[in-house]
C-alpha cells in the first residue's frame, strides 16, 4: 500500500466531509522478539501492524479517532466519527496544526540489513549472551536473555500542505541474571539498543555488566539514618532529571502545574547543570527528522549553568503560551493525540573522573539503583528507595541495600557540587557521574 498517497488522500477526504483542517498520522511497522532461557528458546514473537490516527478541526473544535482497519469503509467511518466528535467540542483558538516545512537532517535512522540477518544467528546471539553472563561463578541463574528488532515508518500529512515520512529501525540485545549467596538474591540486567545491527556492543561487554550488577550488591551492610553526600551513577541520572524535564513540559507550565513554571531565565539549580535536548544525533535512538506532528526537530539548550532557558512545546501548547513549537510533539503511537516530550537528553560533562569524585567524598552513598517516581514535577519533592555502595574517607567500603533518599528538588539540584566527565552519548538520557553535597538518607 502507498501510505504517503493514502495519508494525503485522507486529508482531502476529511476536508470534503466537513473539516476545516485535518491531519492524518499513519504508522506501519514490523517487529520480532526472541527470548532465551537456559539455552533454550523461550518465546519467539513476530508481527506486522499498521494504524491511522486522524485529527480534525471544525470551527476551532477538535476531534480525534484512531483505527487499525484500512478498508475504505472503516476509514470513512473513522473520518465521520472524528468530525462528529469535533462538532460537539468546546472551541479553542489554540487548536492548530503546524505548517513548518522541511525536516531536520538526521543520518543513520534506518539499517536495511537487520532483516537480512538469519533468524538462527539472532537466536544464537541471545544464547551466547546468556551463557557469557552465566560464566562468572558468582552468578547462579539466568532469568533470560533476548534479541529484539523493529522497523517503523511514519507518514504525516495535514491540510496546511505538510506531508512527510521517515523510516527507522532498531535492534537490541538484553540479558538478566541472578546472583545468590545463602538466602541472598540479587538480579542484574543489561541491554543495548542501536539503530544499526553492527553497532551493537560486543556481547562480552553486555554480559559482564549484567553479571557485575548481579553480584556486586551481595553482602550489603545497613547504615544509620543520616545526612550525607550522594554520588549518582549515570544509570540513575534519569531518576533525578526526569522530573526536571517533565517540569519543563509546556502543557504543565501552561496549567500552572510545574514547579519550574515561574523559573524561566532564573537560576534553580547548580551552575554545574547544563541540559540539552537533541532530536538530530546521528544514529540516535531518540532521533527523528520531525516530531509527532511534523515539525522539524533540533538541538536545544534547556538548562544553562543552572538557569532554565526553555520549555518544550508542541504546536497547541506553544500557541497558548504565545510562542512557536519547539518540535517536541510526541505520539504514543497512532492511537493518541500529540503530547509533549524530549528526544535525546544529555548533560554537559564536567571535569572529574568518577574515581576522583569518590575520592573527594568523606562520607556518602554511591547510588546505583533508585526506585520510585523520582522528582514530582508538580511539587518538586523527591523520595525513593536506594541501593549502591557506601563511601567513607574517599573509598568504597561495602554495598548497601534497602536505604531511602529524599529531599526537595531545590535542595538537591542546587546541591550538585561535582560533575563527572564519563558521559555515554549512546544513551537517550545521558549524564556523567555527579555528586549532590548532602541528602537525607534513611537506614536504621
Amino acid at each position: 500500500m502507498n501510505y504517503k498517497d493514502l495519508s494525503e488522500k485522507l486529508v482531502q477526504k476529511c476536508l470534503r466531509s466537513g473539516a476545516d483542517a485535518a491531519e492524518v498520522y499513519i504508522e506501519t511497522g514490523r517487529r520480532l522478539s526472541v527470548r532465551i532461557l537456559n539455552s533454550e528458546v523461550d518465546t519467539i514473537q513476530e508481527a506486522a501492524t499498521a494504524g491511522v490516527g486522524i485529527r480534525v478541526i471544525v470551527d476551532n473544535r477538535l476531534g480525534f479517532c484512531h483505527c487499525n482497519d484500512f478498508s475504505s469503509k472503516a476509514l470513512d467511518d473513522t473520518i465521520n466519527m472524528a468530525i462528529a466528535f469535533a462538532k460537539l467540542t468546546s472551541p479553542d483558538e489554540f487548536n492548530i496544526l503546524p505548517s513548518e516545512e522541511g525536516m531536520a537532517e538526521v543520518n543513520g535512522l534506518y539499517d536495511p540489513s537487520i532483516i537480512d540477518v538469519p533468524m538462527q544467528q539472532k537466536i544464537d546471539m541471545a544464547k551466547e549472551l546468556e551463557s557469557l553472563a552465566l560464566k562468572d561463578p558468582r552468578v547462579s541463574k539466568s532469568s533470560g536473555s533476548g534479541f529484539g528488532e523493529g522497523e517503523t515508518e511514519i507518514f504525516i500529512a495535514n491540510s496546511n500542505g505538510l506531508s512527510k515520512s521517515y523510516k527507522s529501525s532498531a535492534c537490541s540485545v538484553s540479558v538478566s541474571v541472578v546472583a545468590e549467596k545463602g538466602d541472598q538474591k540479587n538480579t542484574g540486567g543489561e541491554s543495548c539498543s542501536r539503530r544499526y545491527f553492527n553497532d551493537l556492543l560486543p556481547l562480552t561487554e553486555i554480559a559482564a555488566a549484567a553479571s557485575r550488577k548481579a553480584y556486586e550488591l551481595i553482602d550489603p551492610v545497613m547504615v544509620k539514618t543520616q545526612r550525607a553526600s550522594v554520588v549518582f551513577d549515570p544509570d540513575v541520572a534519569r531518576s533525578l532529571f526526569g522530573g526536571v524535564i517533565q517540569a519543563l513540559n509546556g502543557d504543565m507550565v501552561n496549567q500552572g502545574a510545574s514547579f519550574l513554571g515561574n523559573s524561566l531565565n532564573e537560576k534553580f539549580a547548580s551552575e554545574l547543570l547544563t541540559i540539552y535536548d537533541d532530536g538530530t544525533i546521528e544514529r540516535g535512538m531518540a532521533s527523528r527528522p520531525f516530531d509527532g506532528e511534523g515539525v522539524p526537530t533540533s538541538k536545544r539548550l534547556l538548562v544553562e549553568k543552572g538557569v532554565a532557558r526553555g520549555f518544550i512545546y508542541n504546536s497547541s501548547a506553544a500557541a497558548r503560551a504565545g510562542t512557536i513549537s519547539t518540535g517536541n510533539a510526541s505520539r504514543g503511537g497512532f492511537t493518541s493525540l500529540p503530547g509533549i516530550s524530549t528526544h535525546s537528553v544529555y548533560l554537559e560533562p564536567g571535569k572529574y573522573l568518577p574515581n576522583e569524585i569518590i575520592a573527594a567524598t568523606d562520607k556518602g552513598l554511591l547510588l546505583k539503583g533508585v526506585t520510585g517516581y523520582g522528582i514530582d514535577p508538580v511539587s518538586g519533592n523527591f523520595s525513593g528507595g536506594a541501593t549502591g555502595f557506601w563511601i567513607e574517607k574517599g573509598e568504597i567500603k561495602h554495598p548497601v541495600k534497602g536505604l531511602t533518599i529524599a529531599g526537595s528538588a531545590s535542595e538537591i539540584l542546587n546541591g550538585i557540587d561535582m560533575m563527572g566527565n564519563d558521559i555515554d552519548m549512546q544513551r537517550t538520557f545521558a549524564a556523567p557521574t555527579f555528586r549532590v553535597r548532602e541528602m537525607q538518607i534513611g537506614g536504621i
Partner: protein
Amino acid sequence: MEKLNIRDIPRRKFIGLGLKGGVLVAATPALMTQLVSCRGKAPGLDMDKETLSKVIARALARGGDYADVYIENRISRQIIMEESKFRSGLYGISQGAGVRVIAGNQTGYAYTDEITPEKLMRAAEVASYVAQGGGAHTPADLTSAKRESFVTVQKPLADIADEKRIEVIERANDAALSYDPRIKMAMVDYYDQVRSRVIATSEGVYLRDELPLLFFIVQAMSDDGNARHMARERLSYHSGFEMFEKVTPEQVAENAAREAIAMLSAEASPAGIMDVVMQNGWGGVLVHEAVGHPLEADNIAKGIGAFTGKVGKKVASDLFTMVDDGTIPNFRGTINFDDEGTQARKNVLIENGVLLGYMTDVLSAKQLGMERTGNGRRESFRYLPIPRMTNTYIEKGESDPADILASTRKGIYVQSLSGGSVNPVTGVFNFTCREAYLIENGKKTKPVRGATLIGSCMDVISNIDAVGNDLDFGPGICGKGQSAEVTAGQPTVRIRGINVGGSRA
C-alpha cells in the same frame, strides 16, 4: 529483569498531563448508530469454528503440545476535561488476532491486525517455528464452552446519551472546584470501552464474550502560594452507567479535593524504620506488589521467584490471609474467564500465613504440574497471555480499625499510595505515599509529604501484627511488560518496622 509495577492512573498522566487539544468525545444519537455499525461489522469475531480449527491444525502441523487463537475487538472512548474545558478525547477501534503455539517450554506467537483466514494461517505458520521437527498434533474439535459470568449490566453504555457522559464529567469538575478556593485546577478523565474476545484452543474450547469497562479519574490540584499538591480519586468497574448511581461523580471529586487541601499543610516526612498503619482500600497494592507478583507462577516455573519451593510452608504472620478472586461481581479485575478460556475463580493464595499455591496460566500450570487458576491474561492481541492478578486482597480480620490506630504509639498512617514496584526475584519493593500522616500517641496528627516505603516481601508479611475488619478495594493498572486492569484491597493493617524514606531525620 522486568520491573513489575502498579499505578493508580494511566502512565500518561505522570509524564504529560496531557494530550493537548480538546475533544469532547461521546456518542450523539448519530454517533451511536455508527458505533453500533462498527461493532456489528467486526467480522473477525464471527470467524467460523471450521476456519479456526484449520488455523489451530496449521499451528500444530510441525508438532507442539498446545495452540490457541485469540481474536479481539475493542472500542474505546475517552473524554478529558482540564481547566474546565473539554480538552481532549479519543475514540478508537482496535482489532486483531494472535496465534500461539506451545512446544515443551517454548512458545511461538504471531499476531495480525487483519482478521482474515489467510492472515491467521500465516500467523499460525510463524508461531509454529518453535515446534520444528515434531510430529503433527491433532487438535480436539471446537465446541462452545460454558463459563459463568460475574458481570451484570443494567444501563448498557451503548444506550447512554452523550449528555449523560458530559454531565458526570461536569458535575465532578464543579464539585472539585467548589470544594475550596485553594483548588486551582481539576482534571476529569472519563474512559469507557467494550472489549469483545473470541478464544479457540487445541483442547476444543471455543468462547466468545463482551466485557464493558468504565474508568473515571478526578484529579484536583491545590495551591496556596506556598505549597502545591495534585490529589486524585478513581472509580472503575466492569459495569454499565449505573456505576455513577452507586458512587456519584461528586463523591469522587470531593475525595480528591479533600486530599489536595489536607496535604497543603504537609511537612517533610521523617526517615528511618517505623511502624506503619495502612488505611483500608487501595493500600492493598502493597501486597499486590510485595506478595502478589512473586506468587505469579511464571517466575516460579523458571525456578527464580522469591516463593519458589515454599508451598505448604509458613511464609507470613498467622493473621495474614491473601486472596486473588476474578469473580467478585463487576469489579475492575473481574474477568469471567481468563484470556486462555479458563474459568475465573477465587484462589486463596496464603491462608493464616501458610502458602497454598500460585497463580498460573496454561504454560506455567503445565510446567509446574499444577492446576490452571484462571490467571492467564493479556493486555490485547498484541501480547502473549501470562500469569496476572485479578482482584487481590488481604482477607479481613477482627480488629477495630480505630483500635489499631490507638494502639500505635508512633509511626506513619498511610491513607493513600500512588503506586509502586517490586523485583519478583528478590521480593524487594518500594511504594510512594500520596497522602500520609504522622502517628503520635495513637492519633493521626500532621500530614507528611514525600514518604516512600521500602522493604522485602518476606519481612512485610511476617511483620503484620494487626488486621482490621473493614476490607475495602481500589482500582488500578498493573504493569508487567503489558498492562492489566486490577483491583487491590485490604482492611486497615499495621506493619511493624518498615523503612520509610523522608527528607528529615
